[in-house]
């Protein structure tokens, strides 16, 4: 198991390294470069100055060499400065990573808490009215544009009813946790609702698959109660593939967070990446994307290990 964990960790780090190069290359393809921005800010710069600056910052070197220099600096903890915030990139990103986790974790838990019972109920009464209703709900969930859902929630709960704030982070330095939580409610619901349909469908099909298995028939034949068969035999096995889909869903969840944060003005990673790309903040965009990638890779790693731990049939070599 430990060897397996170490191997998977190594694999994830390798993917992260590859992605860092891909993202570095892509960021370099964005319009302009830092010197162009300096030129815009200072018309007195002569072409000689430009050339000198490009040499000074190493922008005249080939891509691989520039990437190598960046990586060397990054490994020593130097991730560069953010242009928009005039601060070291990590100083900008840490609080925003926390903000994103404040949004992601409750949304994730809420979507799973909704999807599990819905999927199980639908699977145990296939083709019934309840099943059809849950199916319709799940279809609606995967079909609704997430930003529109967010706008509708704002219209209902912030504009019409006036119960909750329409967006922003809320509160000054002396705002209590309840004040922050009030600003979180709508974004969390919006993000969770946009994910719950897909998970419900997956729980339902996994549960149905598991209910068809021989061991479920054996358990019933032994005379176990319906409840025991469902929970101890069917559900436990049905959850194993669900863990995988939840991990794969992390990428979608991070994508969803970007939309939710942008609509609600929640200062998380997603909004930071979006603002950094639009504002030509190369260092910030690069590190933001790497953080987002690392977050999803970490979720996948945890799911892989959980899978191997939950399902003894998986051989970890």
């Amino acid at each position, binding site marked *: 198991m430990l060897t397996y964990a170490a191997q998977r960790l190594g694999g994830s780090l390798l993917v992260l390294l590859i992605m860092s190069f891909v993202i570095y290359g892509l960021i370099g*393809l964005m319009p302009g470069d830092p010197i162009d921005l300096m030129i815009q800010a200072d018309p007195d710069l002569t072409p000689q100055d430009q050339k000198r600056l490009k040499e000074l910052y190493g922008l005249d070197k080939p891509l691989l060499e520039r990437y190598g220099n960046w990586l060397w600096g990054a490994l020593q903890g130097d991730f560069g400065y953010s242009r928009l915030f005039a601060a070291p990139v990590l100083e900008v990103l840490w609080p925003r990573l926390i903000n994103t986790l404040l949004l992601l974790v409750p949304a994730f838990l809420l979507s799973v808490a909704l999807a599990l019972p819905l999927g199980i109920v639908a699977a145990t009464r296939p083709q019934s009215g309840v099943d059809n209703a849950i199916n319709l709900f799940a279809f609606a969930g995967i079909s609704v*544009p997430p*930003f529109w859902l967010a706008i509708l929630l704002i219209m209902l709960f912030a504009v019409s009813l006036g119960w909750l704030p329409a967006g922003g982070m809320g509160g000054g330095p002396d705002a209590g946790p309840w004040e922050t939580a009030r600003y979180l409610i709508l974004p969390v619901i919006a993000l969770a609702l946009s994910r719950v349909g897909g998970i419900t469908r997956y729980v339902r099909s996994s549960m149905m698959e598991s209910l068809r298995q021989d061991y479920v028939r054996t358990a019933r034949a032994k005379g176990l109660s319906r409840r025991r068969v469902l929970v101890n035999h069917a559900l436990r096995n049905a959850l194993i593939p669900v863990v995988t889909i939840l991990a794969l869903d992390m990428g979608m969840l991070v*994508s969803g967070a970007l939309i939710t944060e942008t609509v609600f003005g929640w200062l998380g990673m997603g909004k930071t990446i979006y603002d950094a790309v639009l504002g030509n903040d190369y260092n910030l965009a690069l590190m933001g994307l790497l953080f987002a990638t690392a977050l999803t890779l970490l979720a996948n790693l945890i799911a892989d290990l959980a899978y191997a731990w939950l399902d003894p049939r998986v051989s970890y070599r």
Partner: protein
Amino acid sequence: MTQARETTLAAGSGQALEPSGAPLTVFWRRFRRHRLAFASLILLGVLAAASASAPLIEAATELSATRVDLLDRNQGPSLAHLLGTDELGRDLMLRLLYGGQVSLGVGFAAALIAAVIGTVIGLVAGYFGGRFDALLMRFTDGVIALPLLPLLIVLAAIDLSKLGLAAQSGDVASIYRIIGLIALVGWTQTARLVRAATLSMKTRPFVTAAHALGAGNLRIMAVHLLPNVASPIIVATTLSIGNIILLESVLSFLGLGIQPPMASWGNMLTNAQELIYSAPMLAVWPGLLIFVTVMAFNFVGDGFQDALDPRSGERGA
């Protein structure tokens, strides 16, 4: 003689839709039994026809989707403007129809390209198997697990002239660009389904027979396997259109997809958020159309799946 027999074999395996030999009629009868899917197909037909007729409506009436009339802003529904006007006084219904042309067109085009990419990858991986398969599928899983939206935002921002491509601008360029971007990430599901189908098909006797008759790899893949994996391709492509329309709407909403003044359902919602108080209906209509269209494509895909593979009825939703 050999030639003739091979053609017969090929023709025999070409009955892709119904293994039992009955062709399209059985498929159609099965599909029509799925009432929701059938109704969705009709609805999509009506939407497509209405969108296509937008220029005719514009020519036949006084309405215009482009003429700005600041004295006529944010009007409610009236006889002159059936759905009212937008924040610049343009007729909302016409803009929605033109937006429909873009959203449906981009959806179809990107889904087709993604289907081709996914089919080639899935077919090649499934047919050759072994390390090649493992490598391609790891790559596919990697693409699925990544936080795609943040990466797409960078991809949407890159400057094509830095790649040595001619930098185009204007309406048509933004459409091509978004079709390419979305196709680049939209092929994964098709690849996985086609691979799975190819894996089971390549062990069938008719493939062995084709081998024995001296058919090359390319010929076996194109002539013998491709028609037999048509079902998963059709289902995956139909289901992916919905996702692709969603993705287009998200990117356009964020200002990185279809650029105004060209209308798309996504970019019509960009300003709507600021107008929630003054003109809430502007935020409702485009989102509703995206929602209904995506849901209809999902129902149709579901219906196709049931009609093409009756056994999947219990598993899918």
